[in-house]
């Protein structure tokens, strides 16, 4: 069976929505939210690289490189914020993070 562009697109869509489910339905742990967000970015990366391969265009791969670096930077800052919050509140349970009552 020939693997075409559609296979990669369906895989990327499934991965993206799994990450989205993780972000929306996470209840216990804010680290799970960050990891599911990384899954979403991974799905987008697969999408870009699949298009880059099937269209013969290298721009997709360059954009993936930039998405990679920006997501690494964002994870660093996000985890620093989580650690600060934990230092002040001694919990990362999402039920307890309700000071802003959002």
């Amino acid at each position, binding site marked *: 069976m020939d*693997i075409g562009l559609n296979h990669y697109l369906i895989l990327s869509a499934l991965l993206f929505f799994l990450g989205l489910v993780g972000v929306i339905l996470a209840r216990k742990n804010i680290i799970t939210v960050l990891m599911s967000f990384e899954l979403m970015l991974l799905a987008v990366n697969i999408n870009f690289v699949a298009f*880059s*391969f099937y269209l013969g265009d290298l721009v997709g791969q360059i954009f993936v490189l930039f998405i990679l670096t920006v997501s690494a930077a964002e994870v660093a*800052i996000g985890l620093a914020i989580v*650690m600060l919050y934990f230092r002040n509140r001694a919990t990362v349970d999402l039920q307890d993070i309700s000071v802003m009552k959002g």
Partner: protein
Amino acid sequence: MHALAFYLFSAVSLGSAVTVITARNPVHSVFFLILAFFSSAGLFVLLHAEFLAMMLVVVYVGAVAVLFLFVVMMLDIKRPEIKPWFVPKMRILTFSLLWFLAYLTSFVLFAGVTMALALLLVQQLIGRAVDFLTPGLVLVAIILLSFVLAGGLTEFFFKKICRKGWGKIFRAFRQAVPMGTIILAVLAVEALAVTHIWLRPSDSEEVLMAPAPPDMVLPNTHALGQLIYTDYIYVFQAVGLVLLVAMIGAIVLTLRRRPDVKRQNIGAQTRRSREEAVRLAKVEFGQGVGGS
């Protein structure tokens, strides 16, 4: 063989993604995230993007996932109780899934049949085959109508077969249907536009921004390097700036100075002048220097 590798890597990545969000131990979640990254790196290799596969392993697994592990092990994250976190949400999850499947099936039936009939009708009227976008507005109207009808039909059948407790969930869903239909209509219009604008790869030589050289001519890394340092140098430098800001930000956020730890003050040491460093004292024979 290629298909086997693709299905293997994608099955592993999807399975590990599910485990990331459902594992009870957060350390297990991080481990399965690492597995997802590794299998996606395998998918990248299948797509002839070896440099990106290595970048995924080095940057994502080697830095980001290790950072996650450090933070997970540093914070005192209590393992949840015996029931997994998604059990209270299970009813809503199953209900959403069933509703979505019923909606989708009825929508496909409605829209497909109506669309075929409309195209046949227009074909009969005009006398020749029609372009795909020419009855475009009619198609959009049919899609919207099908959404509304499908929603009404699924709710009708669900009310017949459901028990009592789902009344609240029904009301909540019904509140979301108008906005959902609007969003779906926008998506349908966008999908229509894509089908009309999409060029096949053989037609699109002039719109390629960075045509990839064949693999035997230039390896993937070389080709990417030729692009990054010439056409995309500004973006490259900007990304470097983003990383610098992230580094500074992480340090600024989490640096703690303890008040009781002695540390050197290099500025004070280099600012020392001769007057405060050396003191000449006249010492009597047999007496010590004394004093300070």
